[in-house]
């Protein structure tokens, strides 16, 4: 039970990465490798501040802000210097590898004896978890999951509302068809910078939260995050099919949790952890190809 709950919590916490990748990759068609670096950046900034005694909320927000700065640098490499999206992200994430190490001071810093967001959440939500019928053993984890679900729900709602404003709609238009956005007076370079800032602040938020959840920050923890995000986005899309913005955002979050559950189930069933990344690639491939095959089969049967 407690493993299932913590799998969920972790899935939702990583769901912020998925939301970030949804913004950069689905809305802006920008395959943003910065994700790997900004995840770690969020974690190390938050960790260093927490260890220094800063309030967990402020430390988490600072991690987010650092991610936003990293994302906007990637955006500027592309928009101002005309460097290709993939290369912009690679350059930024390479630079971040050093920055993260310097900020953290060494490769791994534990958060022992430091009050984190989750300690606060547990304190606030424990009574509600008990009311819902969770026992002594599971109530703490249930409270942490409840907190993550509230935070993720809030993020989805805010993204949904933002992308329906004039600015947000212009950003979606610029990501979809830059010629159209420019012809209607929008500076598409500026919109890309803003979009990547939003995307990487979400990724960094995830890093900050994950560090606090697992109790340490590690300079390697961001490796593979962009793939995780894409896997979640595609898995979510495969789960729900064609939907509007709000549905797609929720599906992305659901994709992250589903993916985490799949990974946990595979490991439990005896999958050699060495094959984990391979399995990830296969799952992403399946999520990409399966919907298309289903559509084709559907069309074929409709034609008959």
């Amino acid at each position, binding site marked *: 039970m407690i493993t299932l709950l913590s799998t969920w919590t972790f899935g939702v916490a990583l769901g912020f990465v998925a939301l970030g990748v949804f913004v950069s990759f689905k809305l802006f068609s920008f395959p943003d490798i910065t994700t790997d670096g900004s995840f770690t950046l969020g974690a190390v900034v938050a960790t260093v501040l927490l260890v220094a005694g800063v309030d967990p909320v402020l430390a988490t927000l600072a991690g987010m802000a650092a991610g936003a700065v990293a994302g906007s640098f990637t955006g500027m490499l592309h928009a101002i210097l005309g460097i290709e999206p993939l290369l912009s992200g690679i350059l930024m994430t390479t630079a971040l590898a050093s920055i993260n190490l310097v900020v953290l001071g060494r490769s791994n810093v534990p958060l022992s004896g430091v009050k984190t967001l989750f300690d606060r959440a547990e304190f606030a939500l424990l009574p509600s978890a008990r009311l819902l019928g969770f026992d002594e053993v599971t109530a703490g984890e249930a409270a942490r999951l409840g907190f993550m679900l509230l935070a993720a729900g809030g993020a989805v709602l805010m993204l949904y509302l933002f992308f329906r404003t*004039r600015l*947000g*709609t212009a950003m*979606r238009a610029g990501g*979809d068809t830059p010629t*159209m956005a420019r*012809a209607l007076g929008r*500076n598409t370079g500026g919109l890309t910078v803003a979009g990547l800032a939003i995307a990487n602040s979400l990724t960094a938020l995830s890093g900050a939260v994950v560090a606090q959840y697992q109790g340490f920050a590690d300079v390697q923890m961001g490796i593979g995050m962009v793939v995780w995000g894409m896997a979640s986005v595609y898995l979510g899309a495969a789960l729900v099919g064609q939907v509007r913005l709000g549905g797609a955002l929720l599906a992305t979050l659901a994709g992250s949790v589903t993916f985490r559950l799949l990974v946990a189930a595979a490991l439990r069933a005896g999958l050699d952890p060495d094959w984990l990344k391979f399995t990830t690639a296969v799952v992403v491939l399946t999520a990409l190809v399966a919907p298309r095959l289903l559509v084709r089969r559907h069309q074929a049967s409709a034609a008959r």
Partner: protein
Amino acid sequence: MLELRNATVTFAAPGGPLVRAVDGVSLTIPSGQFVVVIGTNGSGKSTLLGSIAGTVRLDGGSIHLTGHDITRWREDQRARLIGRVFQDPRAGTAASLTVLENIGVAACRGRRAGLSWATSSSLRAEAARRLGAIVPGLETRLDQPIGSLSGGQRQIVTLVMATWHRPDLLLLDEHTAALDPAAADRVVQATARLVREQKLTALMVTHSLAQAASLGDRLLLVHRGRIALDVHGAAKRRLSPDDLAFRFARLRSSDQLDEAAARSLSELYI
């Protein structure tokens, strides 16, 4: 009023010579004039339009539009004054956004985007009125992704978007070339109507003789980056395909038009 003074655009072909795509063009288009531009492929007419829209930078001369020197303005800055419709319906609209959301972006042309809602009930009512007046039934599709519309319908929505706030200049770059004849005809009618109703200054590139002869107050033939023919006033109103053939022949005989261009113009427009 649009004014080009000695506008020049030079391209360097890779490994080849410099090409003057626009070669010292000076042109004045008074407010309210509807100008049709014709020319063969590679004549420089698209580059001319691009240099006005801001997608191509001038390397000589200047462009003035309603009192502003826009020569150094970026494409998105010029959009404050200029409305555009592209050849490809996919270029002028964002496929994943609904029809109304696309119009919402157009309603912000020349304005700050800000954090108010992109679509409102008043925008919806106005969009339904304007679309329904041109294509009855189109107003019922406001909430569908614009990608689900046909090419012709998308071009009509793009026209409505480009003219949502009256532009000082409307640029139409072969905006019916990708459509079937029936759809092209509807888009042309919608264009003529919007230009007339809003008394727009418009520049339209076309490969259709019917459009070149029947539309507009003025006809420009672009050849080798220059304006080889400029017909306006009563002469433009009387212009028939035979006249056009006669004028091409006269240009050819006075060596202002080379053999290949004369042939391809005749094939294109006559």
